[in-house]
Structure formats: structure tokens, C-alpha cells
């Protein structure tokens, strides 16, 4: 493309400035700035929000679990589907984790992780297969499996719950230990985030997810394996929710049958705030991750800023609506600019 460009090189078109411009105009930057503003405001109101030992740890730790689920949700939403069952998968996987420690004494930690992720992946596979083969909207299928998975969880757990004393101490330590000052849970979440971002940006199959989300029919005609990719997206979402479930048990110690209740809307909210379009084909997992951080950090910052924490959900709602309105405005402006450019080039 650049080889045939005969226009004179304009000042400020070097690779470095292009990079700066891309970062400055990225959708994720705005949300990151909002996150930093919240942290700064809360820190000014109460320095221990950031500078105390616990404050710093909680800042990183609290959103880590939602971050994993939000990555999965973002991948699914990018393919123009939606996964409402993630909260129920988190609950089931968290309970399974506890049961594994109780029923199989001396089980290695890695076995528990594999078990949780496999369970999540399997539940995701059920979602994906139903969506892809029956050609039924994901909203309906995952609404159904939301009830089914939660029902199985409640039936299995009944009124008992997993207590911290049921879990081995080295597993519990995962929830609180740190590497170089950074909580292990956060490290796990960030590693998954980087892997997912790399996959979506650099691999062929990752790019195909965007193509499918932009126009499923065109993607099919082009020869992309739509069915397989959609199923894979749901398996990823399920597996990450399963992983989040295992970590939930490590972080909180007690697991009742209500673990993960309502997370599905939080995860979708995080993705939407981060610029993942609900109509598919647009957005990055970075955005979803920052969205998840923003959501939960605001929750913690509000009481410090002197706002009754009962208003948290209202703020979350305003954030979601504000960010989709913003996306809409940006899209309209982009559309106009492209039309104007076409007129100029003609």
C-alpha cells in the first residue's frame, strides 16, 4: 500500500508518531484514563487506598477473578454471541474445587486446576455445540444453561458449603501470596490476558473470530469454519470461568451454592465498558480487562469518596450506558470522516 503512495511524506508520519497517535486514539486509552482518575481520586481522599500494603493488594486482587471471566465473555461477544451462563459455571467449578479437596484427600493442586478448567470447558462446549449446531441465538441457549448449571449446583451443594478449613493451606495461600509484591491471582489473570490478546491479534484463527462477528454469513461464504470457531469461543469462555471458579475458592475460602451469582452481567458490562461491541466484531480483551478493573475499583472507591456504597450499581449502569453512547458517537464520527475522505480523494 505504501509503495504506491506517491503523496509527499507529511511531517509526523513516522512510525513513532503513528504509534503515539494509535495509543492516544485507542478506545482502551479512554477507559484506562478513567480507571487512573478513579484510583487517583480515591488515593487523594484516603492515601491508604493505594499506598497501604492491603490497599495495594486489594486493588490488584479484587478484579482478577472477574477479569478472567470478562476475557472469556469478550471472546464470545466478538463472535457476535453472548454467554450468560458464566456466573453459573464459576459457581459449579468453585464448588467442585471444594469437593475435590474434601473427597480426594491429598489431591495435587494441579489436579484441582485441571479439574476446574475441564469442567468449565465441558460446560462451555455444551453451550457452544447447542448454539452452533442448533443455530439458536446464544442469548436463549445460555439463558437456559444459566438456570440448568445453577440448578445442578444448588441440587449438588444443597445447603452445605465449602469452608476454609476444608481447603489445604497451600491452596488457600494461593489466594493471598504474592510474587514480587504482586498477588499470584493477578499474575495468573494477567498471563491469561496477554495470551488471549496475543491470540486474538496475531493468530489466523483469532482474526477469524473478528470476521465471524462482523458478518457471520460472509465469513461462512469466505470459507471460514464458523461452527468450529464459535464452539471454540464458548469453550474458552467456559474454561476461563472454570479457572475463575477454582481461584474463587482459593481467594474466598467459603463457597456456597450462590458463588458467582450475577457475574454474567458484570462480565458483559466490563466487556461493553471496555469497548467490545455487543453486535460483534469490534473490541479487544485489553478493553474488557480494563473494564473489569474499572467496575470493581469503582465499587471499592465509592465509599472512600464519601458516596454511599448502595449507589455502586447505579454508577455501574451509568458507566455502561455512557460507554456505549460514546462508542456510538465515535462510530458516527468515523463514518462521517470516511465519507468526507472519500469526497476529498475523488
Amino acid at each position, binding site marked *: 500500500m505504501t509503495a504506491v503512495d506517491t503523496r509527499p511524506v507529511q511531517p509526523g508520519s513516522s512510525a513513532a508518531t503513528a504509534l503515539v497517535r494509535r495509543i492516544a486514539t485507542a478506545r482502551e486509552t479512554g477507559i484506562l484514563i478513567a480507571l487512573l482518575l478513579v484510583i487517583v481520586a480515591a488515593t487523594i481522599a484516603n492515601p491508604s487506598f493505594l499506598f497501604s500494603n492491603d490497599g495495594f493488594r486489594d486493588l490488584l486482587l479484587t478484579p482478577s477473578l472477574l477479569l478472567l471471566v470478562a476475557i472469556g465473555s469478550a471472546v464470545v461477544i466478538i463472535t457476535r454471541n*453472548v454467554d450468560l451462563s458464566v456466573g453459573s459455571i464459576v459457581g459449579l467449578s468453585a464448588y467442585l474445587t471444594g469437593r475435590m479437596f474434601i473427597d480426594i484427600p491429598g489431591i495435587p493442586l494441579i489436579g484441582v486446576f485441571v479439574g476446574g478448567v475441564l469442567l468449565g470447558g465441558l460446560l462451555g462446549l455444551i453451550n457452544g455445540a*447447542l448454539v452452533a449446531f*442448533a*443455530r*439458536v*441465538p446464544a*442469548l*436463549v*441457549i445460555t*439463558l*437456559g*444453561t*444459566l*438456570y*440448568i448449571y*445453577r*440448578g*445442578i*449446583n*444448588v*441440587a449438588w451443594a444443597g445447603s452445605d458449603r465449602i469452608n476454609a478449613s476444608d481447603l489445604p493451606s497451600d491452596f488457600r495461600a494461593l489466594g493471598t501470596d504474592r510474587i514480587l509484591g504482586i498477588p499470584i491471582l493477578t499474575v495468573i489473570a494477567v498471563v491469561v490476558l496477554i495470551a488471549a490478546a496475543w491470540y486474538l491479534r496475531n493468530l489466523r484463527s483469532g482474526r477469524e473470530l473478528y470476521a465471524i462477528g462482523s458478518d457471520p454469513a460472509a465469513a461462512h461464504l469466505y470459507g471460514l469454519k464458523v461452527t468450529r470457531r464459535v464452539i471454540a469461543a464458548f469453550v474458552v469462555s467456559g474454561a476461563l470461568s472454570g479457572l475463575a471458579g477454582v481461584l474463587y475458592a482459593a481467594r474466598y475460602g467459603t463457597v456456597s*451454592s450462590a458463588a458467582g451469582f*450475577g457475574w454474567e*452481567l458484570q462480565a*458483559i*458490562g466490563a466487556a*461493553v465498558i471496555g469497548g467490545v461491541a*455487543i*453486535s460483534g466484531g469490534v473490541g479487544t480483551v485489553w478493553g474488557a480487562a480494563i473494564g473489569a478493573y474499572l467496575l470493581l475499583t469503582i465499587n471499592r472507591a465509592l465509599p472512600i469518596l464519601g458516596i*454511599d456504597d*448502595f*449507589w*455502586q*450499581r*447505579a*454508577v*455501574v*449502569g*451509568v*458507566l*455502561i*450506558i455512557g460507554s*456505549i*453512547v460514546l462508542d*456510538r458517537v465515535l462510530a458516527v464520527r468515523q463514518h462521517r470522516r470516511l465519507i468526507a475522505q472519500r469526497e476529498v480523494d475523488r
Partner: protein
Amino acid sequence: MTAATTSAPARVYKLHARPAWRRVLLTRETAIIALLLIVIAVALATVRNFDSPLTVTYLLRDVAPILLIALPMTLIIITEEIDLSVASIVGLSSVTTGILTNAGWPFELAAVAAILVGTFCGVVNGFLVTVVGLPSLAVTIGTLALFRGVAVGLLGTTAITDFPEVWTDIAKANIPGTPIPVIMIPFAILAIVFAVLLHFTPFGRSLYAIGLNKEAAQFSGIDVGRTKFVLFVFSGAVSGFAGVYFTLLYSNARGDNALGMELQVIAAVLLGGVSIFGGRGALHGVIAGVLLIGTLGSALRLAGVTSDIINVITGVLLIASVVSGSLLGWLQKRRTAAIGKRKGRAGASSDAP
């Protein structure tokens, strides 16, 4: 395609190609109603106390809010939109009723104000979806959090439980001489209004047109934006009314009233044969769908089954209802393809060019 229609002199409407009895009986709506009747019959035969009038009363009381909200929700889903914020509007309306009554307003005025608040919530949804042009799924996930957040924010963890006894008695009363609660009267009126609106007015027919093809509907002179806006306002108003009823029924105004009810409403509407793709569905199916879930729940509870199994059954029913639809469609397509192939082979041998 065009060649076939021009060569055939009489146009055959696909919907009228089958005999009348088949058209009436072999529909999703009839299937749901039949399933409902079977469940009732089995429950009457096997579950003790299911036939007592008290069961009917409690069953109808409990499903009344879902029945009410399912009416406008049906219309919205037929136009290929969705409203996830209804349960939050119920909560907000309930809190409004409570706070205003507590502040010394006469209850009637507080109730009207609550319905107006619900209507305003619907206006907000409608504005964002139609004027700003945002997808309703994203908008109503946002307003779900927003309205619920305002409701919880206004009242915190306190609950207002003091309401005029005249009104709470009415909410709990039955129609004299029957086990049917009084709330069924406004429901019946609303159901008739919505059924007439959906099935017998140009406005209602235009909803199907919008759901099937928005652009075509726009070009045939339907104001798509205004139509959808009106539907979201209906949804808000009815949810507001359901909120007032909810408050009176349980004599309790709390921020987290009706938490999660949106999914129950949508599950029931989809079970009742409304297509999530829009353009398909009828109100009698939806009402049967709501009653089916309610009756199953009530019968199983009486039979001593815990509520989690009821959730599983709700989910399975929901998935089965949509998957069976696409399975039937697939079988039909295969059958017609097979017939077409046979015909094609016969035609090819006789009049090859």
C-alpha cells in the same frame, strides 16, 4: 424464484397451504397449551393438595407480576429487541411506592407516581434504543444496573413494610366466590388490550413486519423508531404497575425486590413460542408459557421437590423449546429437499433441453 412465481397463475400462500385444522392445531402455541394441560392433569392425579383452591390462589398470585410483564415483553421481542431492565423497574417502582407512602403521601398518589417512574424508565430505554440508536441488549443491561442501583441507593438495606391495610387486603383478596386473586382482573384487561393491539390492529401487525425485516418495514411506511419507543414505554409502565402490586402483595418495599425476574420473564416468553429473531409469536402461547413454568414449580414444590430442580426444568424446557424448533425446521428442509430432488430427477429425464 421469480420465474416460479410468474409461471404459476395462482399464488399459494405458504401459511395457507395446509388444511385449517392443521394450521390451528399444529402450532407451537397449541403445543405449549397442550403441555400445560398435561402438566395440570398429571399434577391433579398424582400430587396431593394440588386441587385445593389455596394452591390456585398462591400460584396465580406468584406468577401475576411475570404474567403482567410478559405482555409488553412479547411485543418487544417480536420486534427483535429485548428489555432486560424490567425487574429493576419493578424494584424501583416498589421503592418509590414505599418511600412516598412513608413520606405521608396518600397511597393512591404514591402508586400513580410509581407507575409514572416506571413509565419514565421505559422512556429512557426507548430514547437510548431508538433515538441514539444503540442495541437494546447493551442498553438494557446498562439500565438494569442503573435502575436497580437507584432503587438500592434510595433505600439502602432498610425495608418499608407499612402500607394501608385496605390496599394490601385488596392485593391479597380473591374474586368473591372463586380462588382467583383480584390481580387477575387488571391482568385480564391488559391481556385483552395487548392481544387486540398485537393481533387485530395495524400497529400490532407492523410489529411482525419490523421483526422480520426492519428495512422493508421502514420502506413500507412504518415508523420503526416510534413504534419501538412506544413498546419500551409500555414495558416500563406495566413493570411499574407490577412493582406496585409486588409491594402490596408482600407488604414490603425493598431495593432488591424482584431481583432476577427479567430472566424468568424472558424464559417464559421464549418458551411460549416467541422467536428471539423477531417476527413470530402470539400472546396466548406466552400466557400458557408463564403458567406452565408457574404450575410446574407449584406442583413440584407441593410434591416436595426443591426449587433448584425447578430451575433445571425451566432451563431444559427453554432450550428444548428453541432447539426443537430448529430441529423441526431442519427435518422439514430435508424432506422438501428430498422431494425436490425426486421431482428434479423426474423432470430432467422428461424435458431435458
